[in-house]
């Protein structure tokens, strides 16, 4: 088990970042909170030894936990319920409510396919380098570059009548 002081320090430092990462995958604040809690508890119970940057370690763990969740049967069940039984269900309401609040660019980013979305978000919104993104998503740098390119193409199509200056700089 980790020293609670180390976990406390990590929480104060990285909760915001990990929450954002989780949200980019799950598009749901409540689920993202749960996932980040799980990540800190896993970290607390782990035998992690300082062999790299803690920030990268926790970020990757968050991304992997989110991906596992997206693949899980319970996620698909929620998806089915949300698609089919929207009137009857009240769970995960906040993501639905917030859809109205999203700007056009937000909606466009969040509607990208997962691979392109994570590349765009890490590179443009979190300002990670190509190398750091490739480590985060376990893919070669060339793959990340091609996902960034195809992600930008998709965004261009979605934002054909909008200003997308934020994505113009490399």
């Amino acid at each position: 088990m980790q020293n609670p002081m180390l976990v406390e320090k990590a929480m104060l430092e990285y909760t915001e970042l990990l929450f954002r990462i989780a949200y980019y995958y799950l598009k749901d604040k409540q689920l993202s909170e749960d996932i980040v809690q799980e990540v800190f508890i896993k970290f607390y119970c782990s035998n992690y030894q300082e062999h790299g940057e803690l920030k990268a370690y926790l970020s990757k763990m968050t991304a992997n936990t989110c991906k596992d969740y997206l693949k899980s049967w319970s996620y698909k069940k929620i998806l089915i319920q949300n698609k089919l039984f929207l009137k009857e269900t009240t769970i995960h309401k906040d993501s639905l409510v917030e859809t109205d609040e999203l700007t056009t660019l937000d909606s466009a980013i969040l509607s990208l396919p997962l691979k392109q979305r994570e590349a765009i978000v890490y590179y443009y919104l979190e300002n990670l380098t190509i190398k750091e993104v490739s480590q985060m998503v376990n893919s070669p740098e060339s793959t990340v570059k091609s996902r960034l390119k195809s992600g930008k193409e998709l965004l261009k199509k979605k934002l054909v009548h909008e200003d997308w200056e934020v994505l113009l700089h490399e």
Partner: protein
Amino acid sequence: MSNYRLNPLKNIDVNRNRIIEKTRNRMKQMEAKPQRNFRRPAFITILACFLCIIIASPYLEHTFQGNTNHFSIKKVVIPNVPYDSLIKSFYIDTSSELIYSTEQGIYSFNLEKNESKQLIDTREVGRVLELAASSKWLIWASPENNKQVIHILNRQTHELKMAENQYFNGLYLYRDTLIYMGIDQGKPSYYTIALDTLKENVLHEINGESSNSQPSIDKNLIVIPETLTTNHKSETVVYVYDLNLHKQIGSYTFPYKIAENILLKKDTVFAYLWNGKETGAVGGIDMNTGKLTILKQPAAANAYATDGTHFALSAADEESDTVQLFMKKKEKLTLLSSFPSIKERLVKPRFTSEGTLLLNGEGKDSAMYIIRFDD
């Protein structure tokens, strides 16, 4: 860091504080967990074992021999494959191969040759999430033009076909027929595809609220679960279809709000049953009599798998859990083996349709264990 933030993420102090507070509470609870006093139970256990040995010594040799001869364990290590790929792998008895997928592709690991072979390169689409295979077919779903497409590869002729339809999720194989869930104009149904002709038919229209389990196939039968609520009471109904006749042949009700991991084996529909608060239990409905039996089990189980006779339960092991093997005798599960030769934690038990048990180990080598039972 970029100044741009998605709108919902501009003010997340509340979320941040809630995460920190809840995590602190959970850590405190974990620290405050009372230490068990092992001395008294340990003494009683040793005494009981000693008495058992004295009483049962004439029979011990026979019993142990029976147990060790009952099944064989094969350890398989596939180097350089991530654990999250292995945990989703499955075994095909007829071709002695493990099928798994990574970010790079779909692979077959042949147990006789001890080598991996890439069947499909999926680097363009990333890891495929849904996959089904037999020695004849390899089927996967992946996105094409923002739509999920079912890819069908005949492994014998190498012919690749694509089915563009209303696919939503799930791929289940029965001989030359594929079953999946599709949504057509907002209406979810289970469909069948004849893999040789790509002819599709609706098998079952979903009318319930949701389901806590995937369908299960045994021989020519498939069971499809749905949760239904009447008068504020939720139950799980399983519909049974004959895949040869393409016809519903019955339905059975589990009077439980939640029926997870439904498995059809030897004319019995098994499920992990609970109502959301209490500890759950494994039960089965005999399709010949319609009777539901809750199996008496020695320990709380977090996961289970069965071939109808043997049960692999993820049973509590001090503060964690590991898979142990049980045998169903009438309405009770009795311990057959706790796999003493395997030192690491075992997880994710699953049986093939031929009755082979597959387990994942959580050791450094991420080994997998294939357990075959004597006839």
